[in-house]
């Protein structure tokens, strides 16, 4: 970040909180960047000549006579093809010992896409994981989070999905990511020889939490550059959005805003939507797809963060440990991809939607049978067959270590249905049954 030639330096801070400081200054613009005692800060409130700055690294040790220098511009990222293969911090400065990237300066957190200019997402993103491709197909231009408990292997699954998804550019945004996970991603991408198409903006647990607020916007500004200027298919991975929202609540708390549900700011929905809605299919062929992680506390999805996220994103994916097969599976009940209708049965085989629904319905019957069993009731023959089906369905399709083509997922599913059920029990549209039913 360069400084202006004639810049005023202020040295009288009136008020300091844990995350903000207030000074008297004139001619300051809203959301402008500044340095307070050399620390990056942003204008968040102006009342008369009282300017409140949010200091990203925190205010610890800042004296009232610290130098405050205003930069006159909102936060920017220099974009060019040189971003590829590089690792940056939340301000867009390199952390991989490489040179600074030169390029066109773009404001981060820019305007929204005109909805009438968006294209309808229609390109399937195959991951090889049947729990996703078969039941919750992901489409380019979609935004979908994993709702996961912190102990679940979501980072491994995301890295796997990113590598298999055949995106032109993968942008990884880390918010409060542990250093170990950061290194895991780095090594996985390196080992796969994919570093050339990776860009990473990283705020680890070692960095101040408020800095996280910049990470998604940095990622998405870079993503828009590639998706629009070179029509690339960009996949953005954001982990972990819960820690991002926590940072929002820290700032709003410091600014004396009235908290709404779960101590979150009242604007949480809009704040999250601004990020997720950057996912889009552009007219020029480029696209931005966002796969995020929202960690839950004890699986509670009624908490404000997952709740608001669920209303914004196009579905959500849940991981669950299936004790019957002792593997992690993609939970078919609660997981949902809202855009799957745009591709299943169109880009995939015609039987896909019917088959998928029938399998999940029968899997639900198995869950009912299991409850009966646990309560000590006798099982019917049908109950026993659903349980057998559920176990094999889980092992051969839902487990996250599955990596097969969609057609073979469908064939496997038909095979399982034929093995355990009669045509009536499956109750799929007749024409589809006639073509695909295997005894």
């Amino acid at each position, binding site marked *: 970040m360069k400084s202006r030639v004639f810049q005023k330096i202020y040295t009288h801070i009136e008020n300091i909180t844990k995350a903000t400081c207030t000074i008297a200054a004139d*001619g*300051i613009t*809203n*959301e*402008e960047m500044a340095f307070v005692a050399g620390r990056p800060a942003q204008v968040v*409130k*102006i*009342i*008369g*000549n009282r300017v409140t700055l949010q200091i990203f690294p925190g205010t610890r040790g800042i004296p009232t006579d610290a130098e405050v220098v205003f930069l006159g511009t909102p936060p920017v990222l220099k974009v060019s093809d040189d971003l590829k293969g590089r690792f940056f911090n939340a301000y867009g400065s390199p952390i991989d010992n490489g040179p600074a990237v030169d390029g066109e300066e773009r*404001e981060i957190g820019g*305007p*929204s*896409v*005109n*909805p*009438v*200019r*968006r294209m*309808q*997402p229609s390109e399937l993103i195959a991951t090889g994981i049947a729990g996703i491709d078969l039941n919750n197909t992901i489409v380019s*231009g*979609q935004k979908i989070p994993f709702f996961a408990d912190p102990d679940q292997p979501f980072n491994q699954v995301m890295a796997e999905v990113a590598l298999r998804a055949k995106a032109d550019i993968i942008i990884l945004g880390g918010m409060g990511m542990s250093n170990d996970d950061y290194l895991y991603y780095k090594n996985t991408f390196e080992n796969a020889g994919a570093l050339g198409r990776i860009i990473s903006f990283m705020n680890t647990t070692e960095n101040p939490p408020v800095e996280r607020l910049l990470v998604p916007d940095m990622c998405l500004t870079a993503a828009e550059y590639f998706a*629009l200027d070179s029509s690339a298919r960009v996949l953005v991975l954001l982990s972990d959005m819960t820690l991002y929202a926590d940072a929002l609540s820290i700032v709003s708390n410091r600014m004396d*805003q*009235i908290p*709404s*549900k779960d101590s979150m700011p*009242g*604007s949480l*929905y*809009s704040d999250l*939507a601004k990020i997720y*809605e950057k996912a889009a299919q552009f*007219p020029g062929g480029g696209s931005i797809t966002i796969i995020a992680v929202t960690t839950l506390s004890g699986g509670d*999805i009624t908490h*404000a963060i997952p*709740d*608001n996220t*669920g*209303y914004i994103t*196009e579905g959500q994916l849940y991981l669950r440990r299936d004790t019957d097969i002792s593997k992690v599976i993609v939970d078919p*009940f*609660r997981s*949902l991809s*809202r855009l799957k209708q*745009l591709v299943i049965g169109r880009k995939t085989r015609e039987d896909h939607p019917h088959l998928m*629904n029938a399998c*999940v319905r029968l899997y*639900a019957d198995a869950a009912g049978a299991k409850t*009966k069993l646990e*309560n*000590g*009731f*006798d099982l019917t023959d049908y109950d026993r067959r659903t349980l057998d089906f559920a176990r094999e369905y889980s092992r051969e399709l839902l487990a996250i270590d599955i990596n097969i083509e969609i057609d073979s997922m469908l064939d496997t599913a038909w095979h399982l249905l034929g093995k355990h059920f009669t045509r*009536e*029990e499956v*109750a799929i*549209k*007749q024409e589809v049954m006639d073509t695909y039913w295997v005894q």
Partner: protein
Amino acid sequence: MSTHGRVVGIVANLVTIEADGPVAQNEICYIDLNGTKLMAEVIKITGSLAYAQVFESTRGLYVGCTVEFTGRMLEVTLGPGMLSKSYDGLQNDLDAMAGVFLTRGEYTPAFDENAVWRFAPLVRPGDTVRAADWLGSVREGWIEHKIMVPFDFEGAGTVVSVVPMGDYRACDTIAVIADAGGGERSLNMIMRWPVKVEVRGYADKPRPFKIMETGVRAIDTLNPMAEGGTGFIPGPFGCGKTVLQHAISKYAEADLIVLVACGERANEVVEIFKEFPELDDPRTGRKLMERTIIICNTSNMPVASREASVYTGMTIAEYYRMMGLKVLLLADSTSRWAQALREMSNRMEELPGPDAFPMDLPAIIANFYSRAGFVNLNNGTTGSITFIGTVSPAGGNLKEPVAESTKKAARCFYALSQARSDSKRYPAVDPIDSYSKYLEYREVIEQLDTTVEPGWVNKVVQLKDILLRGKEARDQIHILGDDGVPLDYHVAFNKAEIIDFAILQQDAFDPIDASTPLVRQQYMVNTVLDLCSSPFSFDDFEQVGAYFKHLINILRQMNYQEFMSERFKALETELAAALSERRAR
């Protein structure tokens, strides 16, 4: 001279302005940011300070920016040319905007005021007219678009002159009318109206008395919506609120659909943009887009114009209602609108009500729902606005302020249930929790007796009873086990399953099953009731399940076939055979 001012404070999109003259609450002003005009609405005034919510991002704004007040409230422009358009929450034509991204300060006209229309007069000089009376009509697409006396015209007036039939631009004078005091007013085809004020000028608003077909069985059969009625669809995310609302918008029996995408996902609107111009309206054969106006203020667009968007939609609907049209207004989601209110209330540091929503939220919601309704116009014709809003309750819990306030205001309640959605029983409308108050209206019952069949509402009640008994039986089976309950419980449970699979569940993505005309719903209800009233005999409960699964499969296949086609009739025969097999014993 109009009032001016300068910006003295900025907190997110709330701007404090020092004004040099009179300022009205809800007045619109424009803030000059280096030549770009940003629109804002005054929401609080203290002394010479006006607090305004800006309808745009306030990035880069500084203390000292000049402000110009307009002396008007937030208004929409009404006239021919709005049909099939896509607007943002402030009625800017989205298609007219350049560029992939929305540019701050770019405001586009709602329609072309220079477009030429063939005007046919409906009044003669000397006629007495009042606000909203029809002066003439132009043909807008397939609608006879009435050119009306401006809604703000006071008292009775006299037509001084009116142009003969011919081609005129929307902005040309087509009539001159004189008010009671003799003052003359030249009128063109365009008028403006503040969105937060209801358009009156109709004779009266009777109780809704006839049902409005939506093609969705879980609504039409079990909990019908009335023309001019109000309803809401609450449900946790992932339960199919939007899919259900889209289904209603596609197949509902309305002249005009106004869809308000309020703070929801952009890709959902894109789906409408893409599908509606291609899909046929099953009733008229025209494209769906020809009867649709979209107000689209997605979640990432500025929050203040999200609040405005529902009012913009309602006002446009009211304008068309005054032409004697049947308008269906859908808003997805009213919770986002309420959240926009909350964000502003919070920034103004008002004392919060429950969940930090503003204290007057219930009043605001009730007031909005009350603008829907069936009306008798002064000239003896009728018009209506049927309003269905979705509610996205936080955490899926209906005990939250928006859902509770809406429940008091709306007459139909379509509860979407997580459990139904989890087991892919779509639409996930819970048959037991949902209700339609219109089923209790004497007018509606009488109308159903004549249009469907005598005693129809009794049949609906029977269906609901069977569903409730089925639910109770299922609970008992879960507690006591399959063989711990009498066989009758299994039969009761499976009868409810038949209603569930054959009537409630509907495949929104199947070309035939997606929409069911009322006559076909009637057939299915009679078939199912006949089946449920049959005495069956079984030896054990395993037989019960298997037998009913067989029946359900036949009924489901029937839903996928053209009504009364060969294949349909074959299934009918198969069903009869299956029935006699068990009945014979």
